[in-house]
């Protein structure tokens, strides 16, 4: 991690790996979508609508995962003063918010035919919605405070306080009686999904992860460039 502390070095590595990461992402999506839409069997109860699962579940995983990345990066920034950690946290937020929105939207589309309602107020949905609000609040802090260094310090606090919600989302289906089904992949006694449906789901999960990696690296690159531009502009004003 110390090795990446130098932005120039980070940029060099990011530029080198990005094409590969994008290629892997596209390949995984191709395989995953083929498996999800063509080879996976329809569910015996839900029929073809079960295919929503392959976009819905990975998006929800990523929404939680990205917030965890954000909180970890904030902690690293607070403890080690790592110069890129704040950049990582800041740029992860919009990506995570989109994943969160995607999981809410696809969940809503899935809920209509299955539960008969676009939205129900139960534990999992409510805590996921709160996660969306946390993403929005975090981005609002960055937007509201002009001075980047100060914004970074305040945003760290916001990200770390909001992290309390992540275990609540994860375990909400176990703690409360929920309409939403409980965890069926990451369980102590092994997944409860049949193999032909499980592998496309896992491939899609990997594809989403690589998509996040690609988007995140690109966004971090852009953010570093934006900071450079800001510094050049300030220097130019100083010269005048």
């Amino acid at each position, binding site marked *: 991690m110390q090795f990446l502390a130098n932005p120039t070095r980070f940029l060099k590595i990011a530029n080198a790996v990005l094409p590969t990461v994008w290629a892997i992402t596209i390949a995984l999506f191709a395989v995953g979508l083929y498996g999800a839409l063509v080879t996976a069997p329809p569910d015996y109860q839900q029929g073809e609508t079960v295919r929503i699962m392959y976009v819905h579940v990975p998006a929800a995983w990523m929404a939680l995962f990205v917030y965890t990345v954000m909180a970890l990066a904030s902690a690293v920034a*607070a403890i080690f003063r790592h110069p890129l950690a704040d950049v990582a946290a800041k740029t992860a937020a919009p990506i995570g918010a989109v994943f969160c929105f995607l999981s809410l939207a696809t969940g809503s589309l899935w809920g209509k035919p299955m539960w008969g309602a676009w939205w129900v107020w139960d534990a999992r949905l*409510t805590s996921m919605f*709160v996660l969306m*609000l*946390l993403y*929005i*609040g975090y981005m*609002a*802090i960055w937007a*509201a*405070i002009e001075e980047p260094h*100060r914004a970074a*310090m*305040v945003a*760290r*606090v*916001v990200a*770390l*306080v*909001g992290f*309390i*919600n992540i275990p*609540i989302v994860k375990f909400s289906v176990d703690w409360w009686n929920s309409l939403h089904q409980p965890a069926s992949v990451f369980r102590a006694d092994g997944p409860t999904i049949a193999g032909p449906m499980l592998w496309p789901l896992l491939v899609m999960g990997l594809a989403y992860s690589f998509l996040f990696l690609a988007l995140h690296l690109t966004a971090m690159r852009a953010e570093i460039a934006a900071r450079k531009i800001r510094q050049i502009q300030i220097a130019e004003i100083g010269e005048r």
Partner: protein
Amino acid sequence: MKLILALIKRDLTLSMRQGGGVGTALGFFLTVVVLLPIGIGPDQALLARIAPGALWIALLLSVLLSADRIFQQDYEDGSLDIMTMGPVPFEMVALAKAVAHWLSTSLPLAIAAPILGFLVNLEPSAILPLAIAVVVGSIALSLLAAIGAAVTVGLRRGGLLVSILVLPLYVPVLIFGLSASQPGAAPGLTTASLLILGAIALVSLVVSPLASAAALRSYLK
């Protein structure tokens, strides 16, 4: 400890003698509760059913609106700068201010909540559970509001931002507060909800001073 008590006393005195303190918050609380029956119609049965929820939401908003007073003035006149250099750890200063806010604003609002219940036809059997739940819950409300107030202390238009940041954190308080103040609930549920409310208050007691102090420090540098 003596210094911390002195700090709390100072904040209480300030909020008593200045206008726009408890009275305004209570007035706001009253207004929201009165607007509700006007907004949804005077049906007594309907009002009785939504009364606990209405009171809770009005309480959240009133606490939130008074939150900016926790640190704002001391930040603007420089007292906070001096407090960072004092012998009291800055986390304890933040805690003292949150406690003062609870004593001066949230607690009076919580005590007023069951009384305002008469306006929205709160069932008699719900009065006692509601009264206990709002008092316990208001501790967490003040502590969480302090985080929001600290995070936005140097911003000119921090009010709306405080709502976006703090209301998500209020959701658990609202959920368990409501299930503790439902009149027809099983007795075990009420106790369990009250215990969880207490747990939330204790967790915020730990998190709030640390988070508020960290946020305040970044503004004071």
